[in-house]
């Protein structure tokens, strides 16, 4: 099965396109989900990284400043034993580093200078604990940003001892800079952490610990400013599980039983999503989960969330950044977008599919028109020479080639068909295997008498005459045979008459040599066969005549000529007798002799008359016949002689009535005249030897003339006389015999002297009449 170009084009343009759109949509549907989640995680990761960086950026200057302050104190830059100088130094430091909420220095002696930011902004408060003379004094000084004292008072109730504080102890123990865990500052109630660095007094300075309070609520502020999706959050969890930064700062502080504040742990926080997401990571209390960056997905309250946990920032800041956000925050728009995309894709698929179909149709239309045209041509409803529809060049070329082929083929078919139909010979197509007659032409029907529809139901062997002695072999040509066959067979017509036909059969084969059918050509040779038979008979009769009757004919012919001298003899004898009788002396013997001569001449006449009976008897053989037919048959007998002599015999017969006579005798006359003419022209140049036989009606008689282009008859020759001849080997009897034959048949034969170009001999024959011939009345009529 061949593919239709139209279907292929439709499939190619519309189907493939539709499929492609579908594939793209589905793959994007599948991959976008994953990409979105990846994207969300990346976003969360960025948030975490940002937060880490922000925290570091927030804390590291503080760290640097704290270390610097400690160095200053250590290097006697600050007269640390002078509380006022120290306060001023700390004040300057505090103003420099905005991250600091407070800066302080505690000595091993328990003295303490603390400068901190106070409310409102730009106000500072200092707390100075001194042991002057063993007496503990705690003074509180409020200053503005110009270090001018706004207020001061003493606080005798104060019991604060720096040496008791954890930061002091840690710094002293580690003898290096330490960071405390974040905690809620007592005074400001803000989350923060303390950085402490021991100060080793070199000279006049005192040993102690320099500390800086850094509020980290700004980290929470930062977190609250971070946009993680729509509703996502980032939080910082300390290694012990405390939530130290949260966008909602209120959530991270919780009151202890004693009224002090502490950080809420991840397990306690009033953020159920964060709690669900991250609390499992901090089950072991106090131990930071050393985790690589972990992304996860979880479901809370029916919604899907993604979360990222960043590893601990550093050893000194053992914090974990946890970020979560609902997946929908990232995917909802894209999902929506994707749905829209699917619709658009579907629409595009439909539209482009339609365009594809239209395009396919447009491309296919000329091909289709071509196909329709091909179908019409193949059904014979369209002439291939009709101009083809406007189509592609390639198709047009193919069409041209095919049209040429078709035209040539149709021409051949038409010619064959016409040859077949119009042939003057009977033709038939016969199936080689079954002998079934497939098709016949008109002539075939004429010959056999059957109608075409009758004959195509027959087998060829049905036509053969079973009585034909060659019957079994007469249809042998139907056998698979390469050789054309020629044979004669007898055939039975529809009306039962038997005819002779000459059959020629050839087997038509296809390219593979398989026989398709036999083409049988048939001629009705019944008449020709009959004529042939007649000619044979005539020839037989003539030769019989020549053999058996020539003497009789000759005698008969001679008789006519002899009668003349016999008549003369009779007359002369008579004259002699009379002369003798008139003479004075009569010898009786002479008279007797003369009388005998007279009697003998009369007797000779009687004998001759009896001889004529040979011909007279033949009158019984008189028949009515067509002279033209007899002439034609006779002509054939001398044709060989004529060919040999290079002479042409032409006949020009008018429409003659049938004539009456002895057919064989008349044939002999014609034969004789024709032979005479041919022989007489022997001396003529080639191409000028022509014998013309023509006819006309003369006084009711049929007159036939034989004319040649020979030298003519010498006037000195006495024609129709015995022994007068122009032929070296002739006896001069031919014409004489011919004349007697023609006369015996009721006609005349003469030499027409009016013909100057050659010799012309004419003879007449009585036409056939219904009444008995005029020349044969009952004998004895007087």
């Amino acid at each position: 099965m061949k593919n239709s170009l139209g279907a292929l084009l439709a499939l190619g343009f519309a189907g493939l396109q539709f499929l492609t759109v579908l594939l793209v949509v589905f793959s994007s549907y599948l991959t976008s989900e994953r990409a979105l989640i990846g994207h969300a995680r990346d976003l969360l990761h960025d948030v975490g990284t940002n937060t880490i960086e922000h925290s570091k950026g927030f804390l590291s200057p503080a760290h640097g400043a704290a270390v610097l302050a400690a160095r200053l104190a250590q290097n006697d830059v600050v007269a640390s034993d002078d509380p006022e100088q120290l306060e001023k130094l700390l004040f300057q430091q505090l103003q420099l580093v905005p991250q600091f909420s407070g800066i302080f220095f505690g000595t091993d002696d328990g003295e303490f200078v603390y400068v901190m930011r106070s409310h409102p902004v730009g106000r500072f408060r200092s707390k100075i604990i001194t042991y002057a003379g063993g007496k503990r004094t705690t003074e509180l000084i409020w200053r503005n940003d110009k270090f001018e004292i706004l207020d001061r008072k003493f606080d005798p109730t104060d019991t604060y001892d720096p040496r008791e504080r954890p930061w002091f102890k840690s710094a002293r123990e580690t003898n290096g800079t330490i960071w405390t865990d974040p905690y809620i500052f007592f005074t400001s109630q803000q989350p923060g952490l303390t950085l402490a660095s021991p100060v080793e007094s070199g000279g006049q300075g005192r040993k102690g610990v320099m500390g800086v309070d850094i509020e980290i609520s700004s980290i929470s502020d930062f977190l609250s400013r971070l946009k993680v999706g729509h509703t996502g959050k980032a939080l910082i969890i300390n290694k012990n599980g405390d939530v130290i930064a949260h966008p909602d700062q209120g959530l991270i502080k919780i009151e202890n039983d004693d009224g002090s504040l502490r950080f809420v742990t991840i397990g306690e926080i009033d953020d159920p999503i964060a709690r669900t997401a991250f609390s499992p990571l901090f089950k072991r209390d106090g131990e930071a989960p050393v985790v690589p960056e972990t992304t996860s997905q979880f479901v809370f309250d029916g919604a899907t969330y993604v979360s990222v946990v960043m590893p601990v920032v550093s050893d000194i800041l053992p914090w974990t950044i946890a970020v979560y956000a609902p997946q929908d925050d990232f995917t909802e728009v894209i999902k929506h977008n994707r749905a829209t995309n699917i619709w658009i894709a579907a629409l595009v698929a439909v539209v482009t599919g339609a365009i594809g179909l239209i395009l396919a149709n447009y491309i296919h239309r000329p091909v289709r028109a071509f196909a329709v045209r091909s179908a019409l041509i193949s059904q014979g409803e369209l002439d291939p020479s009709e101009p083809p529809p406007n189509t592609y060049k390639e198709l047009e070329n193919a069409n041209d080639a095919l049209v040429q082929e078709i035209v040539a083929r149709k021409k051949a078919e038409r010619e064959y068909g016409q040859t077949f139909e119009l042939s003057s010979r009977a033709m038939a197509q016969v199936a080689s295997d079954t002998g079934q007659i497939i098709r016949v032409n008109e002539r075939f029907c004429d010959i056999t008498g059957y109608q075409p529809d009758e004959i195509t139901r027959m087998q060829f062997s049905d036509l053969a005459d079973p009585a034909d002695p060659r019957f079994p072999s007469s249809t042998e040509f139907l056998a698979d045979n390469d050789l054309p066959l020629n044979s004669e067979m007898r055939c039975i017509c529809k009306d039962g008459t038997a005819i002779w036909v000459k059959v020629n059969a050839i087997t038509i084969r296809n390219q593979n040599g398989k026989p398709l059918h036999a083409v049988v050509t048939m001629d009705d040779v019944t008449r020709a066969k009959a004529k042939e038979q007649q000619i044979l008979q005539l020839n037989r009769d003539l030769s019989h005549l020549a053999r058996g009757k020539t003497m009789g004919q000759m005698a008969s012919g001679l008789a006519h000529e002899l009668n003349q001298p016999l008549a003369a003899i009779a007359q002369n004898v008579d004259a002699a007798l009379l002369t003798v009788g008139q003479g004075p002396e009569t010898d009786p013997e002479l008279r007797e002799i003369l009388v005998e001569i007279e009697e003998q001449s009369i007797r000779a006449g009687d004998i001759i008359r009896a001889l004529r009976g040979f011909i007279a008897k033949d009158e019984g053989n008189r028949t009515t016949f067509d002279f033209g037919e007899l002439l034609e048959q006779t002509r054939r007998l001398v044709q060989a002689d004529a060919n040999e002599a290079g002479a042409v015999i032409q006949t020009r017969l008018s429409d003659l009535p049938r004539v009456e006579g002895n057919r064989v005798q008349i044939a002999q006359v014609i034969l004789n005249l024709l032979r005479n003419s041919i022989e007489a022209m022997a001396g003529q140049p080639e191409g000028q030897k022509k014998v013309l036989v023509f006819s006309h009606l003369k006084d009711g008689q049929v007159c036939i003339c034989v004319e040649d282009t020979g030298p003519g008859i010498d006037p000195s020759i006495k024609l129709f006389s015995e022994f007068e001849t122009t032929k070296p080997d002739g006896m001069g009897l031919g014409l004489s015999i011919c004349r007697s034959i023609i006369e015996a048949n009721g006609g005349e034969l003469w030499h027409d002297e009016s013909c100057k170009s050659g010799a012309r001999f004419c003879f007449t024959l009585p036409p056939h009449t219904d009444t008995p011939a005029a020349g044969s009345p009952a004998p004895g009529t007087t």
Partner: protein
Amino acid sequence: MTKDNTDSETAGDTAVMADTDLPVFVVDDDRDVRTSLPRALRKRGFTVEVFDSARSFMESCDNERPGCLVLDYRMPGMSGLELQKHMNDLGYSIPIIFISGHGGVPESVQAIKGGAVDFLEKPFRPAVLAERINAACKLLVVELEARAECAQLRAKFDRLTQRESEIVARMVENPAEISSKEIGRFLGISPRTIDHHRARILEKLEIKSAAELIDLAGKLERICS
């Protein structure tokens, strides 16, 4: 007439001589026959004229010169039969005796049909021919005499005027009513005038009575028909 010329009665009678002085015309293409036949006939006393073809005879023949024609049946060019037909066409009444070396029943029948008095096959006994010529001439003489009488009568009758011819015709037609009164009534003329005409008629016809007139008219009818 007969075609049997082996007649035993005349076979030995060679003494048949011409009993007519009418000429015999011999037409034959055979030279020997032309020589011998006229000679034999002349010996018997016939006047003979010889022609070698039908055409040459035709050229010299004349109806005013009666004679007997001995004609060869078969000749080149114009045959005897054709000459006979030609003479008949011209209205010449000349007795013809055909002689033929090719004789046969069909030929003789044709010749006789054409009015020939006889048909002899060559060779024939000269005496027979002479006899036949005499017979033919006898008939011819009778005919010639009749013809002459007819001509004479006709000449007499031709002298009559038209009116006179009418009167004669009426008298011959109705011999019972030949009185002048009856004829006058018939023709619407007075009997006196009829009488006058009748006298003129008898005078012109050189007769004396009405009976003779009717007789004469009957004779004319008989001879000239």
